[in-house]
């Protein structure tokens, strides 16, 4: 998506600091699930603004269409019918990239500059640098990125980084008719969420709370949940997401250790050679063989 050049916090597969002269406010999108009516205006606005079109699918006996995130559907609604405290509830969650402070996708990405985290917290894919390996999918704790079947590039919500860069709210927030999607500084969004949580508690949702999981360092897409103690009710929102230890090992400690180990093997060999010299066939053995030949000739 858009290129911003002075306010980069992290860049994939890059070990030196990125340009970060420009400091911007940390932003966040707050999804108030208690005000969401599942109208999918956000899904439509996302396709319109980003000019992508999801294929017309089929009905699988639920309201969830598009049925999953795809390279063209960067945000989808997930509907869950649950019974809580003897009451039926129809929980509707807008799913998409959470824009983690500690993004698993970026950690896993092998291609320099294919994934950028801006100072404002947005984690953005730069598809022109994407090599299509799918490591971001492997790294994501929320199962968000999708690899396009047509161009093999990874796609996901950009939090409308292009709009945010010019002080516009993301298309979904702009289109949301009920104000269930709010956008602003992360601090403001937390304050707003606190008010919503107070209201929900007054309405009997004792466990209402903010979903801003610290396992990924917090997220720049947060939810107000009526049942913050059971995020799993909301179509399997992970209770305590974090970058998988396997991914951390793979793209963490393993990287320098293995590189160093291989370097040591190479250097060890070199030094072995120069210190011990080559392992040559000894003169005696050569002589033995020659002597045998002479003996043989004589016998003949």
């Amino acid at each position, binding site marked *: 998506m858009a290129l911003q050049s002075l306010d980069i916090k992290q860049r994939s*597969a*890059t*070990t030196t600091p990125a340009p970060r002269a420009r400091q911007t406010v940390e932003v966040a999108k707050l999804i108030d699930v208690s005000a969401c009516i599942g109208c999918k205006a956000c899904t439509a606005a996302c396709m319109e603004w980003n000019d992508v079109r999801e294929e017309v699918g089929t009905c699988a006996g639920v309201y969830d269409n598009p049925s999953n995130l795809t390279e063209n559907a960067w945000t989808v609604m997930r509907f869950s019918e649950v019974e809580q405290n003897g009451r039926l509830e129809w929980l509707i969650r807008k799913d998409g990239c959470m824009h983690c402070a500690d993004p698993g996708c970026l950690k*896993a990405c*092998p*291609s*320099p500059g294919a994934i950028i985290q801006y100072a404002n917290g947005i984690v953005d894919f730069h598809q022109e640098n994407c*090599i*299509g*390996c*799918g*490591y971001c*999918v*492997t790294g994501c704790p929320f*199962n968000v990125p999708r*690899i396009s079947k047509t161009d*093999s590039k990874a796609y996901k919500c950009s939090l409308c980084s292009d709009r945010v860069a010019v002080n516009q709210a993301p298309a979904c927030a702009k289109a949301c008719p009920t104000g269930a999607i709010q956008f602003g500084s992360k601090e403001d969004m937390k304050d707003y969420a606190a008010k919503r949580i107070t209201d929900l508690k007054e309405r009997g949702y004792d466990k209402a709370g903010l979903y801003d999981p610290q396992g990924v360092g917090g997220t720049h897409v947060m939810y107000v949940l009526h049942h913050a103690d059971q995020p799993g009710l909301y179509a399997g929102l992970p209770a305590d997401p974090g970058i*998988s230890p*396997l*991914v951390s*090992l*793979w793209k963490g400690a*393993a*990287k*320098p250790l*293995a*590189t160093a*180990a*291989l370097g040591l*093997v*190479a250097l060890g*060999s070199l030094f*072995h*050679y120069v210190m*011990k*010299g*080559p*392992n*040559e*066939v*000894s003169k005696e*053995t*050569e002589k*033995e*063989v020659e002597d*045998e*030949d002479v003996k043989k000739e004589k016998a003949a």
Partner: protein
Amino acid sequence: MIRDPKDLQRYNASERANHWTVGISFILLALSGLAFFHPAFFPLTQFFGGPVWARILHPYIGVVMALAFVVMFLRFKALNEMTPTDWAWVKQVRQMVDGDDHNMPEQGKYNGGQKLLFWALAASVLLLAVSGIAIWRAWFDFGVGFVRFGAVVHAGAAAVMIGLIMVHIYAAIWTKGTIRAMWYGTVTRAWAKQHHRAWYRQMTGK
């Protein structure tokens, strides 16, 4: 190098071709794989026509290597079974590394170290093949847990294999007169007598 008709045939043409198929594949895999593993190696993707081509080609080369390796494995499996003598050799490997091979036990076509390398490589290739399929997104879509495990195994096995191959290559360079076995297929009798005496005797009847 002058070829002497009395040199001993160590590898036939087919075996050499097989080896180099694995070898070239391995080098390509190592270069492209390292590029995805650590940003420091990312420029290596340029050898493949850029990073996207590197990503596309790597798994196919992997398939080539795995298949060629299977053939090689079947060919040399029997020759690489460890014997008590091999274990005795392995126990004394320090002397060998120090450059003193006078007291090493008598070795057949392969010494204990080579045999252990053979099995370690076989294990690495097996792990790489299975984990490689797990993370090959162009064709497969496994559960993310399996994929993550696969990614770690693939990276680990690859690092181990690269290390082993470095040892393998160095051993060939260090032990003079070795590499020609994989070029022309022959070694000198003296080379054989010094490094693989039992094999030498077997070949010469002495």
